[in-house]
């Protein structure tokens, strides 16, 4: 089956389920301890939320609130202590790594390469889960990789070496690799951390566009209040391993709630786009 038709299948499936729940996180909890005999160093309490195709969900919270842990539980990298994660009805934990990679793509912050590689080689890695074990890349794979680079606006970077491009460009190529996986779910862990403001906006614009066009479900971990407010359809607010609230930005961005979570005085207004805007107040 060619990759082109697989993509069409995804779209059709996505269309069919357009208004149905794609991602369902059900009472997922986790505990991490250095020593099994000791008390856990960190606990994520039972958390639930749901997401649909085309939605962008932001997992928002200060440092050490359990955001990344939650993301890794969704991606399948961690096994939850209790609860489960369902993707289109399948428990992600029970999928093989290969099947999981066909449906879930994770965008890390950095990418440390042991051997130098060109951007197109890098993006082609995303096709790995769609290829049988001993096959070489087909023409379809090459097409999809080219497409992915074009979709993030990095087509001109195709022949460049990964260690010679800027941070923002690298982030786009990493995103392209995730897109090449043709996933249903796109997970990003603090993608804006090392980017300048223009790159941040560019990335999130691209995410919004891609989510709308290709019906991805996007989950972004971030601590950037305004970016989350501007781009997320849903926000999961976390603090110290607990999920405080899940809902659209309007219901999350309440001044007292945010001040309590982020431990700093702020003011919340309605921005020109209709989304909440947060301003940090200096001084106590």
């Amino acid at each position, binding site marked *: 089956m060619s990759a082109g038709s697989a993509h069409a299948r995804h779209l059709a499936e996505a269309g069919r389920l357009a208004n149905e729940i794609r991602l369902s996180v059900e009472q997922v909890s986790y505990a991490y301890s250095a020593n099994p005999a000791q008390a856990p160093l960190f606990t994520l309490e039972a958390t639930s939320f749901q997401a649909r195709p085309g939605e962008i969900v932001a997992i928002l919270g200060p440092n050490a609130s359990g955001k990344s842990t939650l993301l890794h539980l969704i991606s399948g990298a961690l096994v939850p202590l209790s609860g489960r994660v369902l993707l289109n009805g399948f428990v992600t934990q029970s999928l093989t790594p*290969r099947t999981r990679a066909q449906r879930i793509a994770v965008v*890390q912050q950095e*990418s440390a*390469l*042991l051997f130098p590689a060109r951007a*197109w*080689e890098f993006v082609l890695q995303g096709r*790995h889960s769609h290829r049988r074990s001993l096959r070489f890349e087909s023409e379809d794979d*090459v097409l999809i990789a080219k497409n992915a680079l074009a979709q993030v606006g990095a087509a001109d970077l195709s022949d460049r070496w990964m260690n010679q491009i800027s941070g923002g460009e690298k982030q786009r190529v990493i995103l392209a690799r995730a897109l090449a996986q043709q996933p249903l779910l796109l997970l990003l862990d603090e993608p804006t951390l090392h980017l300048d403001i223009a790159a941040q906006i560019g990335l999130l614009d691209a995410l919004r566009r891609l989510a709308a066009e290709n019906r991805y479900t996007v989950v972004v971990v971030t601590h950037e209040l305004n970016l989350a407010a501007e781009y997320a359809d849903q926000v999961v607010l976390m603090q110290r391993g607990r999920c405080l609230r899940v809902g659209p930005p309007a219901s999350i961005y309440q001044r007292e709630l945010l001040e309590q979570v982020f431990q700093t005085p702020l003011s919340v207004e309605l921005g020109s786009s209709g989304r909440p805007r947060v301003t940090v107040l200096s001084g106590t």
Partner: protein
Amino acid sequence: MRPLTLRRLFLQCSILVLILLVVVVIAVKFGAVPVSLYALGRDLLHVLSGQRADLSSDYVLIIKNIRLPRILLGIIVGASLSVAGTSFQALLRNPLADPYVLGVSMGASLGSILALIAEPHLSISPALASLLTPLGAFLGAGATIAAVYFLGRREGQIDSATLLLGGVIISSFLSAIIMFLMNTLSGNLRGLSFWLMGDLSTPLQKSAYWFLGIGFLLAAGAIYTTAADLNLLLSGEKEAMHLGVDVPRVRLVVYVAASLLTGLAVSVSGAIGYVGLIVPHAIRFIFGSDHRTLLPTAALGGAIALVFADTLARTIVAPTEVSVGAVTAVVGAPLFIYLLRRRLS
């Protein structure tokens, strides 16, 4: 964009197969006893055309009974060491890894010493007696593989850093035991040091060659099925997992298969150094680091390198034979320095 294709792989392998054939012809020609290739070819034709019942000239006997088996052994051992080295470099994500870094050669040496010690006390047929040392070595290698595996686990899976530590520890420990044994025991341990440096000169029984060949194909084949995974593993283990690689399974398969390859090689030829370390780097330098081509080309490269080194070893000061491990060291070390500098620049 120039992705890897089957045709490129075939082309690269064909070049190397040609070079291997040339090296084999050189190895057949040169040795302690002079051989005329023309006369050999003529005799072969006579046999094929039915003019003679069997090849009976002296040097042909030498070639069939001594040189060709030795060349075949060199091919299999060279290919095994090379594939094992490539695999360990990927598994441990360390360009300095060689097939012996996880202690397999020490285990094999200890196994062969124990076999030599036990030999007078066992009543076995002469045919089996010549297989005793390789068998002991292979068992020793197997025990070491298991021991390092159990040491190298974390949370039930192989962890690269822990594996490396476990291998180094066991290697040192076994090395100490070997030195202790060699110091305190009398008896027929002579020549063990010769074997420890690497020696292809002992012809084996035919069944042994079959065993080696099939073992190589199975183990190298198993590693090859993970070739694409290894490419991704080198980008980072977490990322590899997210891209669909079953990391624990790949690590286990590669570890066991590569260690078995090393064990096979060491049990019949001792610990020949540098082949497993340098050949992968040299091949990467020429043909690139995609393991889907790197593994087969490294295998061929290892065969070429070892047959060539062995030919040198038995011709430089003929009829005395230099240990092949000495030749690979003398040639390999400067080559490694050269490759290192190229890589850094």
